[in-house]
């Protein structure tokens, strides 16, 4: 239903293009450069995982796409284009009002961010349907039931009359997903959608997202800190560190053969159920303070391969292999150190 390609935009234009995005937060301590030039594109029906640790700028990037950057934060440079047209600036204003919340939806870590605790969930979904699709009351009610059914809520006819507090966290996240899907979006941004949930519930939600993605042909931008969560869901991966994207490519290629030492370290330090290692690989040190980001590569102080050049010149995100971009002066040299996890899975 959602993925009908619209005829106005040529197919070679990506659905979403984030181009050298820079977002800063003006705090009393100084200017925090949360995103320092992030670029990536997303095509129709594609899933991309934006992976990074806290403070890497992954959530800020997704919020910028959604137009949710609030003071003290501001987009200071770069562009965000939807089907080739900018969502930013004076010209983008009217356009983005039409796009955000309609063609692009978002779900958050805490489902209550998007739910109104004082409104029946059926009415909340109906409101979205009325606003974005101009549905009348009775067809909106019918559609709300269908949507709840779609996200796997049993007895949807009874459930539409209930309030969010009558649901558990996992159920509310399903409701939030139903609401995000109500406007028939082409892109769903999922910002740590399962971080607050228990593992067994997380698995259910991830399965739901995967199924919806295939059934509806949705494009999904998944923001997460958990490499396990992306592994099952995303075809492509973008790894962020200290406000920059350090590596992009096909998920399985990055997992099996990371080009950036940070991606390598991140994969190695993720505890795995299926492999016992005598000692977990850990990355020494901590991410840099983004008030005074390093001149060179932000990862250089923690990088086992860092050379003098790394500390002086910040590496560009360059295509080293087909469809594999890495921002590292010593891209793929990490292969010499070994696989990211101890062999023998």
């Amino acid at each position, binding site marked *: 239903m959602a993925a009908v390609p619209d005829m106005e935009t040529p197919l070679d234009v990506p659905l979403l293009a984030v181009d050298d995005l820079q977002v800063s937060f003006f705090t009393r301590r100084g200017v925090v450069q949360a995103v320092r030039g992030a670029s990536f594109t997303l095509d129709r029906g594609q899933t991309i995982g934006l992976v990074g640790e*806290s403070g890497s700028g992954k959530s800020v990037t997704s919020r910028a796409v959604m137009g949710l950057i609030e003071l003290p934060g501001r987009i200071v440079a770069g562009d965000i284009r939807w089907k080739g047209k900018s969502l930013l600036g004076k010209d983008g204003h009217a356009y983005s009002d039409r796009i955000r919340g309609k063609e692009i939806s978002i779900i958050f870590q805490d489902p209550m961010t998007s739910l109104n605790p004082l409104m029946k969930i059926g009415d909340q979904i109906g409101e979205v349907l009325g606003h974005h699709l101009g549905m009348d009351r009775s067809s909106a009610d019918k559609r709300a039931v269908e949507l709840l059914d779609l996200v796997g809520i049993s007895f949807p006819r009874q459930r539409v009359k209930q309030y969010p507090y009558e649901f558990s966290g996992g159920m509310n996240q399903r409701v939030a997903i139903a609401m995000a899907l109500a406007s028939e979006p082409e892109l769903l941004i999922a910002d740590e959608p399962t971080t607050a949930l228990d593992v*067994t*519930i997380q698995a259910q939600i991830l399965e739901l997202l995967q199924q919806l993605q295939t059934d509806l042909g949705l494009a999904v931008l998944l923001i997460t*800190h958990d490499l*396990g969560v992306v*592994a*099952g869901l995303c075809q492509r991966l973008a790894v962020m560190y200290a406000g920059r994207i350090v590596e992009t490519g096909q998920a399985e290629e990055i997992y099996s053969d990371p080009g950036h030492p940070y991606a390598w370290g991140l994969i190695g330090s993720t505890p*795995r*159920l299926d492999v*016992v290692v005598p000692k977990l690989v850990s990355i020494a040190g901590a991410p840099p303070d983004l008030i005074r980001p390093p001149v060179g590569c932000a990862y250089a102080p923690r990088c086992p391969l860092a050379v003098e050049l790394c500390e002086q010149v910040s590496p560009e995100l360059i295509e080293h292999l087909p469809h594999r971009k890495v921002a590292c002066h010593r891209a793929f040299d990490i292969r010499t150190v070994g696989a990211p996890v101890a062999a023998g899975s």
Partner: protein
Amino acid sequence: MRPSLPEADTEPLLRVEGLTVHFPVGRAGFWGRQKQVLHAVDGVTFDIKRGETLGLVGESGSGKSTTGRAILRKVPITAGSIVFKGQDITGVKGEELRQLRRHMQLVFQDPYGSLNPRMRVLDIVSEPLIVHGLEPNTEACSERVLDLLEIVGLPKDAADRYPHSFSGGQRQRVVIARALALRPDLIIADEPVSALDVSIQAQIVNLLADLQDEFGLTYLFIAHDLSVVRHLSDRIAVMYSGKLVELSDRDAIYDRPTHPYTEALLSSVPIPDPVLQRERRRVPLTGEIPNPISPPPGCRFHTRCPIVQDRCRSEEPPLEDKGAGSVAACWFR
């Protein structure tokens, strides 16, 4: 001072027997005559040997944290007993309880909230030494603190700084240093890494492992999934809705999970490998965790269990030895 008898080695450091913690949560009914209780922990029995690490795993509401806090005597115990170093500590209070604190310590989940933002690291880490009068000499006390900071891998100048100037991982090191200051026998680590970034988690897990080797510590390591505990634990206990459902040797849990809940939990943890993860089959688990105010009769897991049968709905399965290092509570495994 008790002479170390040979049997002291076989006696567990900690023995928890039939531990039950119920919290009153209010009243129901029109006149408020029915008292409602939240069944946080219901009849949990396990022991921990000296130098061992027991991983305690469960989802939210399973009672894992309450179990930890009950052992520390931070929550009122409804029934059961806790025997620590051969002494029944179920009922100790006042000064006796304060003295007990010297021997068991807690590492918190939240490294941001568990350090007083108004105190320097020196004051935070020396507090246990001061309140127990272990180091009356100020000079020697700061000397000890500097030693502790070095042990947990913090720079010397950390002592004079305030918690806000540290990252999450460094704060957790401060928390560990404070717990270590009293040279406790038992450390209860309540999700010590779940608030940290992955690359930092590994640092802290490795630090805890090193400290165990160096000081012969005993850990009760509480976690919400099975991936982190694998790297530290000798045995793993799985809790579900206030009950212990499985208590097995580490390898037995991962290779041959006995309880269907353990199996489901294992299959729910995503593996960070796209090829493997896409091929994995999850044990389908529908439904939600039962309400702890009115837990279901019989096996608590029967509402979600894929192999449920009639017996499970009425009779509660006992925790019994299933062979090959597995102890589980299930009628049909």
